[in-house]
């Protein structure tokens, strides 16, 4: 079989490999392997995107590719190589290269054997409407955003509308010579838009992401971004300092997932993590956040629908990271789990990976964003954050800026547009200073976050940026 001949056109999601096609290709590659253990990872993917600015489409593109990665293990030596040239000669060369690199590599005392056959929970995260989102439909969606933003922002003049729409469809297959075979396919779409007022003093932003394109309403996003742009004109400067904040779900989504890096069990055990205990051990079982905070991953959760296996083929289970404010779990690679007598969580071993495997959901409350605002005596409403960077790994202290709609709330009402701020704050501290958690909503495919009202958020300086 020559998989390339399967492709009847260059730019449509029909080019994705089925489980059968991927298995046949994997079998062919495994047949070329001579290493003690060989793992084959086959990715096929299509992406279609449309970018717009100044009320017109600036670039649009489509791409498809199939790539094969080989992980070869000889004794305790392991290496990998990959190619997207799928002819036999090239595949054979790539297998040979991985084996040669493995032989040349020193022994890895931490190496874990390849997994045998596994069973995975079925996760239906492939939606045809997303996989078939062609250039014409994307252009029409961009036009709807631009038109609705223009109408909504009319009061401020001819608003500048920019944005980006991307649809992805992909498959991943994983096979090895110990009987493992895993296959998963998924789609996602994301549409975001930024609207700026012609006087240069107002900017608004809105975004939506989902596995299913049909869940995204382009006109509503255009309207929301334009409303924010108009309302944010002529911002007032207020003194930086500690303020109560109402963070929209996207602002929470900008902060909370960054904690993923701190959940690495090995770093905690080694004494270089915020979850390391003075004198040794970890803080698992200790209260580390407000008791209303519960954060978990679960690939089968209907609002997450993430891959049910990681890059080693390990099944991804539901894991509760923080439950009612108590640190429940850390992320374990297979090696570290075995060493510590814990369960591996996936996402932590082999080449790359890390963070939270299986999507991420922070449990929400019952109040809407408007109700959180209405319950605020004095505070700052944040649309989203920008350019977040780590300042101190010991506390997950971060710095960043507010952007595209920052407002003063007084006596339960938005009263003023504010100049943007730089802040220096830790999401761990923030999760300890919660006043109220609002309804949770999807912020992107595989992620659900609530709005939050928290006190004493540390704004450190003003930014002139609009």
């Amino acid at each position: 079989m020559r998989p390339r001949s399967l492709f009847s056109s260059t730019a449509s999601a029909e080019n994705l490999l089925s489980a059968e096609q991927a298995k046949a290709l994997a079998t062919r590659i495994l047949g070329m392997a001579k290493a003690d253990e060989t793992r084959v990872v086959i990715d096929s993917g299509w992406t279609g995107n449309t970018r717009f600015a100044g009320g017109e489409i600036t670039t649009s593109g489509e791409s498809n590719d199939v790539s094969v990665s080989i992980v070869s293990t000889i004794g305790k030596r392991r290496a990998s190589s990959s190619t997207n040239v799928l002819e036999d000669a090239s595949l054979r060369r790539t297998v040979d290269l991985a084996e040669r690199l493995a032989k040349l590599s020193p022994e890895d005392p931490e190496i874990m054997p390849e997994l045998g056959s596994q069973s995975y929970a079925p996760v239906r995260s492939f939606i045809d409407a997303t996989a078939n989102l062609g250039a014409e439909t994307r252009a029409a969606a961009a036009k709807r955003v631009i038109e609705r933003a223009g109408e909504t922002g009319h009061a401020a003049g001819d608003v500048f509308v920019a944005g980006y729409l991307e649809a992805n469809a992909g498959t991943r297959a994983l096979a090895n010579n110990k009987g493992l075979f895993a296959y998963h396919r998924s789609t996602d779409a994301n549409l975001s838009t930024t609207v700026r007022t012609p006087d240069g003093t107002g900017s608004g932003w809105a975004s939506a992401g989902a596995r299913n394109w049909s869940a995204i309403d382009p006109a509503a996003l255009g309207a929301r971004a334009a409303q924010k742009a108009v309302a944010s004109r002529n911002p007032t400067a207020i003194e930086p300092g500690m303020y109560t904040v109402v963070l929209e779900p996207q602002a929470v989504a900008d902060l909370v997932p960054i904690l993923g890096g701190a959940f690495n069990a090995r770093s905690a055990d080694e004494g270089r993590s915020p979850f390391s205990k003075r004198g040794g051990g970890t803080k698992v079982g200790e209260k580390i956040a407000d008791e209303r905070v519960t954060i978990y991953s679960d690939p089968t959760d209907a609002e997450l629908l993430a891959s049910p296996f990681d890059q080693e083929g390990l099944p991804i289970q539901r894991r509760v990271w923080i439950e009612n404010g108590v640190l429940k779990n850390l992320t374990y690679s297979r090696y570290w789990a075995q060493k510590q007598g814990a369960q591996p969580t996936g996402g932590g071993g082999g080449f790359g990976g890390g963070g939270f495997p299986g999507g991420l959901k922070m449990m929400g409350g019952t109040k809407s964003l408007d109700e959180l605002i209405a319950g605020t005596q004095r505070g700052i409403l944040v649309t989203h954050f920008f350019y977040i960077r780590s300042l101190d790994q010991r506390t997950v202290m971060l710095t960043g800026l507010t952007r595209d709609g920052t407002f003063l709330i007084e006596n339960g009402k938005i009263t003023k547009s504010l100049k943007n701020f730089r802040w220096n704050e830790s999401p761990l501290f923030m999760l300890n200073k919660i006043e109220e958690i609002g309804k949770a909503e999807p912020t992107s495919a595989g992620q659900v976050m609530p709005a939050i009202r928290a006190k004493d958020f540390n704004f450190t300086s003003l930014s002139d940026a609009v």
Partner: protein
Amino acid sequence: MPTNRRDFVKASAAIAAVAGARAAFGQPAPGFLPNPPSDSVVDDLALEALNAAQAAGASYADARIGRYRRQFVSTRERNVTGVNDSESYGIGVRALVKGSWGFASTSTMTKEGVGRAAQEAVRLAKAANAVQRRPVVLAPVSPVKGTWRTPIKRDPIDVPIEEKVALLLAANEAALKVGKVRFVNSGLQLLREEKTLATTDGTLVTQTYVRVGPQFSATAIGDGDFQSYNEELAPRGSGWEYIESLNMPGNAEKWATLAAEKLSAKSVEVGRYDLILDPTNLWLTIHESIGHPTELDRAMGYEANYAGTSFVAPPEKYIGKFRYGKDFMNIQGDRTQEDSLSRTMWDDEGVPADKWLIIKKGMFNDYQTTREQASWISSLTGVKKSHGCSFADSWSSVQFQRMPNVSLLPGDKDIGLDDIVAATDKGIVVKNRGSWSIDHQRFNFQFSGQVFYEVKGGKITGMLKDVAYQSRTPDFWNSMDMIGGPKSYWLGGSFGDGKGEPSQSNSVSHGCVPARFKEVNIVNTGRTA
């Protein structure tokens, strides 16, 4: 640039004529796939794509075939944590129809495959045309044929893996000799990229780029504390000889010692200090506060939805009118600089590499441009041509405006960091890249480093920690009152700089000299509750 049927035939003939006879710059490039598609196969595919795009209705098209070979080696302490080698081969076709762009790419490298990608690019351009306000106009460029290759002594991809691993593990071993240093990470990121560009203007060029990026960090553990130190090992457009010149095994112990020293460093007192930035730190400040805001697409709002816009806008109010800094401040855009990451002979539109002043004697002078952008400001600058800043990070990505090497030129007096320290009463020296963050118009920034030294009465008196400097770009650069001379010039850079949607990664270098900035706000990043 619209072309008619006659131009198309002419362009195609020109491409066919040069396919076998190119002018060579530097050494001829050996194909890097072990069974490489020959030059003629690649050229034929590119030509096929151009023909298909024009037949489908494109007024202009370019086809870019990329063959990438990447290698990563990573280690921790006495173990190798990853050895990976990857190759990628494919074509991207960009088509202009009635002034709208379309782009499609594929790894199906057959005549049929590239032809379908070309047709798809035209279809995308037509779809985009339904949402168009201002048709694209391309600045003129002379068609060119040739080859070029990063000048290197030893190809890093071909260096045996044992040699790479031995070098890294020797560095780790040396670092672990330092008391309290318990963890060491080191690695190598290596790239060889062969890129062929054909355009319907008649350009056909093949270039081979080699880039190397070493990494080293050490972590020391104290009582309830830990501190890491990352050495600033600049990535370069160089061969293996550069990696060897860094002498990682010989220097690692010295580097690791800094991690241990940080455990007992004094936490900084907030306030205003004269800030002395070593080139190992200043290069990134230049990148963020000068490199990005002087990208013309940002200034015009094309990045508004992602990386942001720029305070250096609108162009008519800034070109030749805005004071960025004092008279001795000259910032150069340069795609010709030796050993630099964005060095090239031609960009991804076939425009020859350029060198120009972005800031001249402290005044903003000109932006970074592509062929599409040049006409937007040519009446203000008098420059009709593109500055050659078009670049795509892969065959599967569309080319767009990316940063050239943007560098601070040395001052007239040949002084160095020590001379600046000696002339400073109350200051802080910052070395290496730490944390960096800047707003979406490039005004408010906060940068940190890896090591900080307190300066009192012209002398370094001890190490500080938890230091970050926060300022506003125009205030900051106008506060620069001393810079080093030619002997203190150093070339830093980043292997990956993100921009665009979908996000692309660009490699870029920044050369600079040490500099002093008066009365800069210093914040303490070590809050504990």
